[in-house]
């Protein structure tokens, strides 16, 4: 069974946490997930196949001209931010005063 600490590490890398019982549920779920993942490993001779990252080649894509398009105003951008100061999103100080 996958270790709980490993799962916790994966969660922390994505910047969230769960409680102990939630990790235990996930441990059990991982048992089945890993068996399902084994189905991928069962397929032979795939190293020569290129990984597919999009469904099909799209030749309709071209770079747009570097022109100013629609944009949001500062007040629109800030509309959903809970803490603001001087037209900016307010966050805790990130620079140490002693530096």
């Amino acid at each position, binding site marked *: 069974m996958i270790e709980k600490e490993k799962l916790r590490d994966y969660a922390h890398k994505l910047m*969230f946490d769960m409680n102990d019982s939630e990790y235990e549920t996930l441990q059990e779920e991982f048992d089945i997930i890993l068996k*399902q993942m084994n189905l991928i490993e069962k397929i032979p001779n795939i190293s020569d196949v290129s990984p597919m990252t999009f469904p099909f080649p799209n030749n309709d894509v071209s770079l747009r001209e570097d022109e100013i398009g629609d944009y949001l105003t500062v007040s629109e951008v800030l509309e959903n931010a809970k803490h603001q100061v001087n037209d900016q999103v307010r966050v805790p100080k990130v620079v140490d005063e002693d530096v």
Partner: protein
Amino acid sequence: MYRGKSILELRESLDNGNVTSEELFGSANKLAHYFQEDYNSFVTIIDKCKVKRSNSLISGIPYALKDNFSTTGILTTGSSNILKDYVPVYDATVYKKLKRAGGVLVGKTVLDELAMGGTGTTGHTGIVRNPWDKERQIGGSSAGSAASVALGIVPFSIGSDTGDSVRKPASFGGIVGFKPTYGLISRYGMFAFASSLDHVATLTRNVRDAAIVTDILKGQDPKDMVTLKDDGKKYVDTLDNDIKGRKLFYIKEICDLDLYKDSGDSELIEVLEKFHELLDKCREMGFVVEEVSVDKDLFNAIYPTYMCISCAEATSNNANLTGIQFGPRGEGNSIEEIMFDARTKGFSELIKRRFILGSYILQKENQEKLFLNACRVRHMIVDKITELFKEYDGMILPASGGIAPKFDEKDEKLSDRYLLLENHLAIGNFGGFPSITLPFAFVSDMPVGINITGGVKCDDIVLNMAERIEELTGYKDIYAKVGDIDV
């Protein structure tokens, strides 16, 4: 009076002056409120009618939009606590096009949290119930969009489909779910789940309405760089084309009756029997229908391949949900602590599990073995199906091996049925193939759907074949006639 009517029926009533769009909105609004407590289709029901008339077929006609499409000034939550108070300041292209065409928004519909799920049970405002049986799931993630159409509240709704999120709930709800070719419809303003698999899709009660709505939504959008140039076709005009000689195939390893005859699952057997009866009717109509065989090991890997790719992409796409620029602000003494707290409180357990799986897949030691190999398997499956589409016009399969599950039912997650019959719809997302589900039978008084998938950019052919098959099923324009209300 107007409940359960199709787009064209409502169009006729509007054009004849028998009803106004304000009255249609009023009717849909009443229905939405009436059914909300029992079925929970909506996160937000709009109470103010805003009509902008045009000469489009949907002008003045009510519709519903999944709550992962950005709508200026209207709460848009993704059915997640991390966006529970988010009010967008811009419109998704889909919403903009529907507004321009005169569609009248009735509400924003409940989804599985951030579109990651297939049950309709994980939205932050509660579970969505199946209109045909309240004790059963409608499926997801476009749960409320499906329920609102299956209840007859609106003639059409918009959903998103990353693995089967429109086509599966369509099957469970007895309605039509159409996911066009990848890039046909702009996803700008639709919350991204897995960008290489995400599609905008429609839910309607007949194939013609699906074509009408897709005709309005399709087209290239500079704001979504994967969108295709407009093919210039009007799908609604090709629906009546002759299908004589059109070739369909079904996959033996997915729906051969012999595979399941000892399963003891009478509903599954009945679904497959009725599926093969329908194939016979298709042959009588003029379709050529043949069985093909595939590498079962390869197709058994559809579900894990989907999970690897979608969860990995989702971890990246949802990294912007931090509670800093929008969403509930977390507590802490540093930016990191604030984000950590916001994400810990904002995501539900189920979605966290998917993110952790994505994180696991993307660990350095797993990237080659899991993520890249999943992308290779995707390539092999798409190549196989594309090769078949050189000979055939479409693939026809049951959308699911059974009726909508009850809320406490658990799948056997390593069974053939689960891996193949319940998850093959993801093929349509792997290859970006146009794919449509429509009702074809009732089993245990619940609807079941058939799925037809065709070659890339052959949306017109898929819709044409689907409309002819709809004639054979006799299940056009059905909805769950529950509730004592006539508006």
